[in-house]
């Protein structure tokens, strides 16, 4: 994974252990991916292709009607023919997901920082964050839709409620896990609250925050889809969940599957993007991103 090549600087042979400077070897690559990573990609890909082939075969062999179980080829075809409608819906869902995630990150991190600055604030507000988390979004979505009125905003709020908590609780944990001696050190040098936050607590919280973000990325999408199911609204700007409902009513099962696949793919894409960002941010220093050698 690590493609970092440290240029071995000229080190004087002064008898110190300074000569033990680690030198990262460069990975060999095929198509931009290191040779070691290929089996990890090919194995699940092979399984997937086998499963799809078996699925197609069973549908053809047992002559299962399309409105019960369409084969993967038909779904792929539907994906292409209905692309205009589906991609517009995908865009709607993704926009809500992204907005919810951004809101979850800014409010989650913001509140976490506030909580760690004031124990009383945390004690007074954290229980409500927990309540927000444990209340099923499906059960409060109708209320939110009635109260808020604007459907897009309602969906955004529902998705935000689901995505918010992992970021909040993980960031709080991270902000509080800065090394105690390092905190003492900052105290010794008379660091201000802001400096301690900026140079110690926020960097220490980064891996925890990113862990929360990985969970929240998927949850924001799920929240957006679930809320849309509850809302079941029509109109021109309708997301993928609405397409699934609609296709269900019209017995257009291949389209239903196509929409479902788009949701899954979006979820995977969100997860991979966040993992990649996480890797970039942590690869030089955090245990989780380092390759073990022994």
């Amino acid at each position, binding site marked *: 994974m690590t493609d970092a090549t*440290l240029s071995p*600087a*000229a*080190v*004087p042979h*002064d*008898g*110190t*252990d*300074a000569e*033990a*400077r*680690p030198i990262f070897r460069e990975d060999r690559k095929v198509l931009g991916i290191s040779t070691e990573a290929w089996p990890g990609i090919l194995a699940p890909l092979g399984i997937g292709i086998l499963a799809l082939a078996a699925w197609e075969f069973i549908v053809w062999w047992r002559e299962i009607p399309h409105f019960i179980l369409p084969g993967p080829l038909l779904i792929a075809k539907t994906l292409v023919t209905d692309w205009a409608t589906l991609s517009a819906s995908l865009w709607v869902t993704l926009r809500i997901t992204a907005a919810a995630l951004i809101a979850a990150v800014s409010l989650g991190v913001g509140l976490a920082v506030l909580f760690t600055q004031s124990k009383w604030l945390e004690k007074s507000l954290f229980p409500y964050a927990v309540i927000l988390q444990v209340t099923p979004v499906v059960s409060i979505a109708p209320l939110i839709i009635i109260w808020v009125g604007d459907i897009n905003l309602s969906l955004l709020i529902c998705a935000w409620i689901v995505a918010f908590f992992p970021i909040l609780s993980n960031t709080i944990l991270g902000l509080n896990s800065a*090394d105690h*001696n*390092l905190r*003492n*050190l*900052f*105290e*010794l*040098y*008379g*660091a201000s609250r802001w*400096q301690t936050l900026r*140079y*110690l607590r926020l*960097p*220490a919280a*980064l891996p925890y925050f990113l862990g929360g973000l990985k969970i929240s990325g998927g949850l924001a999408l799920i929240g957006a889809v679930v809320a849309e199911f509850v809302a079941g609204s029509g109109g021109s700007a309708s997301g993928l969940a609405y397409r699934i409902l609609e296709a269900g009513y019209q017995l257009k099962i291949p389209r239903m599957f196509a929409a479902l696949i788009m949701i899954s793919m979006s979820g995977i894409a969100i997860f991979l993007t966040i993992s990649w960002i996480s890797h970039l941010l942590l690869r*030089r*220093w*955090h245990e989780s991103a*380092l390759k073990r050698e022994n």
Partner: protein
Amino acid sequence: MNLAEADRPAAKGAKTLVAVRHVSKQFANGTIAVRDVNLDLARGEFVSLLGPSGCGKSTLLRMIAGLGDPSVGTIDWATMNHDAWGRPARELGFVFQDPTLMPWATALDNVILPLKLSGTNKGEAEARGAEMLALVGLKGFETSYPRELSGGMKMRVSIARALVTHPKILLMDEPFAALDEITRHKLNDDLLRLWEANQFTAVFVTHSVFESVYLSQRIVVMAARPGRVMADLRVEAPYPRDDLFRTSADYAHWCRIASEKLKEAISA
């Protein structure tokens, strides 16, 4: 401010930098970590606090650093410069038992942390940091992360960070306890070299008789339960000290004396 000087000269002709007066420390759980300690630290002197674990030597060191106040007694500083917040500027460096580096920052960024916190401009801070890294034998490692360094190298970075502000006093809390003997000897030598070159006061907490004799001019022997000072011993051996000293009869002689004092302290 030198009230200590009058009644208790710490060393011939040397001015007292820190005066510890009747200091006791009781923790919240009732443990008395330190009881009635009196100690004068002279400017430029190398003092070891030697004692078994639980004798309060680390607690004492941390109180001198200002991490935790004494329950009873005072710790007076000869200089009383005040920082922007009106607190006395202690001008000290502290080396913990662990290197205590920020894993997300490079060696250079770790070293310049104290300068950054005091608002020194980046260019000057980095120049001083690089110079300090070179002094501890880590030239060329500015951009390495702690993860990529060995235990001894991490400790060197930690020492460089403590010295980058040119402190009047360097407090060290068993800094080399976790290192292997070869690395420890090397770091002891380097520490003495830095001390001789920079003229700071050094307070070194250790439980090793050999380390304390090798390094110090003065050994303060402490006993446990409750932590208290049992003996104050001068090691009358000249500097520079090197491997020759480590194998000399003189060294063995002082080690024997310090061991006896420590034994008395433990059985007391």
